[in-house]
């Protein structure tokens, strides 16, 4: 063994002092119990005979003393922080990926899934050696590096204890990829011993081990039950101003029963805190309840709340309260859309049907000029076909895009494929909300090699047909084929897809009213010259944020209404709206991942020695009293 915490010489000195005290006390136990006897002479003879056989008095039979010294030695040894020699091999480099997405707030018992996950993570950190390096990444809303690699366990514990659940969708796969990047940045040391340790409820899919670097240990610890937990949640709540009747609004609400039992309850709709309407519902297992509340009177400063109450789910109870309430802000300002197309057959009609959209038509040549000189583009730009060499920072919906040769490419076109079929979807993404693409027939589509920051939203097993990408200030949704080469324009999904896309792209900036918890959200404050804005969070706390160029970056982790105060009030609603987070199940662990708690062979050994020392002391105490020392 090797002492990590105490040099051997110090250990010996530390042992000698208490050992000397113990020996002294042992030989001079002064407190004697008085015992009155009838005939002391007999006892004196006995004592003489006993002393004749014991030349060294108490030390003659020092079993108790040996036990005491052994206990002291063990406790001193424990203070020396002993380790087995083999434990002193190369330390681990652990990327701890903590899932703190909305589903982790589920509370099947007294403790939430996240509390359990944090407890497991803290326990794992305790088991790690002091020389191991640990980084903490969270995946709720956006992937965040909470603590870079450090050997300071205390710092890691503080980071873990400071984590909260983000009431938004998780990015577990991205978190793992971030962990891979972090580990790669540590270099190619032979003794790196990389380990990605994921603590999650298993609701999100882990990336296949084949996609991850070989030689990296992949460990996932699942918290919560493998059985699906009962939950009913609001998965959509949208309020629009009626085009024909200014000042009148209509609300669309979707409630889903994500349980294996029937559910019933009621929806209470409130406008500015005042109850407007109550509608009961009863849902079969996996059932869906959609309602439209029309002709609601309100103003642009009004907020609307939909709340599920009186929920009854068979024998169980609703385990995720986060999705039981949804918030909406009535103010829905227009989105400026720039359509760049030589001759678009369907899009102009689709865009005109949406009163929120203010559409400007541009030819590719005009846009190329604009793009060449503009540092940044506001609104959303739809580009069909060829892309200009430069795309300034902004939001883009790229349809059948053909990147310019030698240009600043977000992605690369590598070929074409005939009759591709949609087989995989990321249906929880806002772009695909209420969009059914499964039966879309496509004659021909481009194939691309996607650049960094890409997320495939829909596609074949091998190719991306619809993707989202964020790279260097550009937020992009790409459609790999021309609508005219498919029957998509003839399907209901097309206008919904276009509207979802433009909303998702456009609402990230000016005039946005709904944010996704955990995601960075840019808000243009009313006064562009304001340097600061005070944001009141749903829990009532107020924080001051710096506004740059009239824009401030808000990250709200909790669902609810956020109030931004800067020369006028701006309200923003935050909702979970994620069926994948609300469906409280557990996915199987993909091959290549090891399931279970983090086991570290070089766990601490000192508690063992302390416990052993205490046990020996107890034994000595017992023996002393039972007088079996002789």
């Amino acid at each position: 063994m090797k002492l990590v915490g105490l040099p051997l010489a110090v250990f010996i000195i530390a042992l000698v002092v208490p050992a000397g005290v113990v020996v002294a006390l042992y030989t001079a136990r002064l407190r004697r119990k008085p015992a009155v006897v009838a005939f002391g002479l007999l006892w004196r003879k006995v004592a003489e005979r006993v002393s004749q056989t014991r030349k060294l008095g108490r030390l003659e039979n020092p079993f108790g003393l040996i036990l005491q010294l052994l206990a002291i030695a063990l406790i001193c040894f424990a203070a020396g922080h002993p380790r087995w020699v083999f434990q002193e091999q190369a330390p681990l480099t652990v990327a701890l990926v903590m899932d703190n997405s909305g589903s982790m707030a589920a509370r099947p018992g007294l403790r939430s899934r996240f509390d359990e996950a944090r407890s497991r993570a803290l326990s794992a950190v305790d088991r790690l050696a002091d020389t191991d390096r640990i980084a903490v990444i969270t995946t709720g809303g956006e992937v965040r590096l909470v603590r870079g690699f450090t050997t300071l366990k205390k710092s890691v514990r503080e980071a873990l204890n400071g984590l909260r659940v983000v009431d938004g969708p998780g990015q577990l796969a991205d978190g793992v990829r971030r962990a891979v990047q972090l580990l790669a940045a540590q270099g190619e040391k032979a003794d790196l011993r990389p380990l990605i340790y994921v603590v999650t409820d298993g609701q999100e899919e882990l990336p296949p081990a084949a996609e991850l670097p070989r030689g990296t240990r992949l460990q996932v610890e699942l918290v919560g039950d493998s059985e699906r937990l009962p939950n009913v949640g609001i998965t959509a709540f949208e309020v629009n101003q009626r085009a024909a009747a200014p000042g009148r609004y209509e609300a669309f609400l979707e409630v889903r029963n994500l349980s294996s039992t029937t559910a019933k309850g009621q929806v209470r709709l409130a406008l500015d805190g005042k109850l407007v309407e109550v509608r009961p519902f009863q849902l079969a297992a996996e059932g869906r309840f959609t309602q439209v509340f029309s002709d609601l009177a309100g103003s642009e400063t009004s907020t609307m709340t939909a709340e599920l109450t009186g929920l009854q789910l068979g024998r169980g109870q609703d385990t995720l309260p986060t999705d039981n309430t949804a918030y909406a802000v009535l103010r829905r300002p227009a989105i400026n859309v720039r359509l760049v197309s030589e001759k678009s057959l369907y899009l102009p009609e689709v865009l005109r049907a949406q009163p929120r959209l203010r559409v400007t038509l541009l030819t590719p040549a005009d846009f190329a000029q604009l793009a060449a000189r503009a540092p940044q583009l506001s609104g959303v730009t739809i580009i069909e076909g060829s892309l200009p060499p430069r795309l300034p920072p902004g939001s883009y919906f790229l349809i059948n895009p053909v990147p310019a040769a030698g240009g600043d490419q977000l992605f690369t076109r590598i070929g074409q494929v005939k009759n591709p079929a949609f087989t995989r979807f990321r249906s929880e993404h806002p772009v695909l909300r209420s969009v059914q693409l499964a039966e879309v027939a496509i004659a021909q589509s481009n194939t691309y090699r996607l650049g960094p920051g890409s997320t495939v939203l829909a596609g074949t097993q091998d190719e991306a047909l619809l993707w989202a990408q964020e790279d260097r200030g550009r937020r992009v949704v790409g459609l790999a084929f021309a609508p005219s080469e498919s029957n998509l324009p003839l399907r209901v999904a097309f206008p919904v897809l276009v509207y979802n896309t433009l909303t998702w792209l456009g609402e990230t900036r000016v005039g946005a009213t709904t944010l996704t918890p955990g995601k960075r959200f840019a808000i243009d404050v009313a006064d562009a010259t304001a340097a600061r804005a005070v944001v009141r969070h749903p829990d009532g706390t107020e924080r001051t944020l710096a506004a740059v160029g009239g824009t401030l970056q808000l990250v709200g982790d909790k669902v609810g209404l956020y109030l931004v105060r800067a020369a006028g009030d701006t309200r923003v609603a935050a909702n979970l709206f994620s069926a994948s987070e609300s469906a409280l199940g557990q996915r199987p662990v993909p091959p290549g991942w090891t399931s279970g708690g983090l086991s570290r062979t070089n766990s601490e050994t000192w508690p063992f020695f302390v416990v052993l020392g205490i046990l020996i002391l107890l034994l000595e105490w017992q023996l002393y009293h039972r007088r079996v020392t002789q």
Partner: protein
Amino acid sequence: LAIDLLEKDFLRKLEYLYLVAKEGFQGLLTAARLSKSFGSGLEFAEHREYIPGDDFRHIDWNVYLRIGKPMLKLYQKEEELFVYILVDASKSMDRGTPSKLDFAKKIAASLAYVGLANDDRVTVGSFTSQLGDSTNAAQGKGRLFDTLRFLGEMKGEGQTDMARALAAFLHKSRRKGLVILISDFFDPGGFQRALKQLHHAHYDFFTIQINEPEEIKPTIKGDLEIIDCESGEKLQTQVAATALQLYQEELERHYGELRNLCKSLREGHVAAVTDQPFEDVVLDVLRRGGLLR
């Protein structure tokens, strides 16, 4: 009073003991108390020729018919037996529940009653390091209550010095007789000299050794300060299994010497523990014989 010797139950037991003693030990009680002088007792001794002046009521007419000479039938004269019951009233006797002293008092009372009922001259006294008070030599059952009162007022205090106390007894006593010593025989100066001087003074004696259970099988353990209850001397020692075993050996050696001495002097000895019924001890004493002659 530590115990009430006048209590009805106790008196009833005394009566019972007397009856048992009378029935079971009559021979012992009457046969051996013979004087060396001849007289008008009940026990036949010999015949001698009639001399004028002799009481002709003692002429054996059967012998006269056989030999034709008046022969006088002589009986051995019965003599009063002096019984001295000496109870050790030192502090060591005042230990245990019931205390050894109380137990000794009951035995003393029982033996005194048997003696008084047999018209013996019974004296009950106490001793510690010196001879204590005693009752006057009493005779007859009517003197029982005085004896019981005396025993009831006896207290355990002081140290034991049996040799000195018995020397004083010998000096004071005018008539030889039977001395019953009731004690734990925990005498730092030893009991040997005391018993030998009794023997050499031609006194018969009977030793009744009283102990409490804790003395026979002590339960004390650990690092102890052992205090002698009489002298107050202290001894610091560790008592464990070995020490307890050695104690048993020393105790056995101590009382072995007592038994052997009594045997060699042809005197009686009985050992009793306070958790026994005292009447069993008394009967045992009587049964073993040699106590009353």
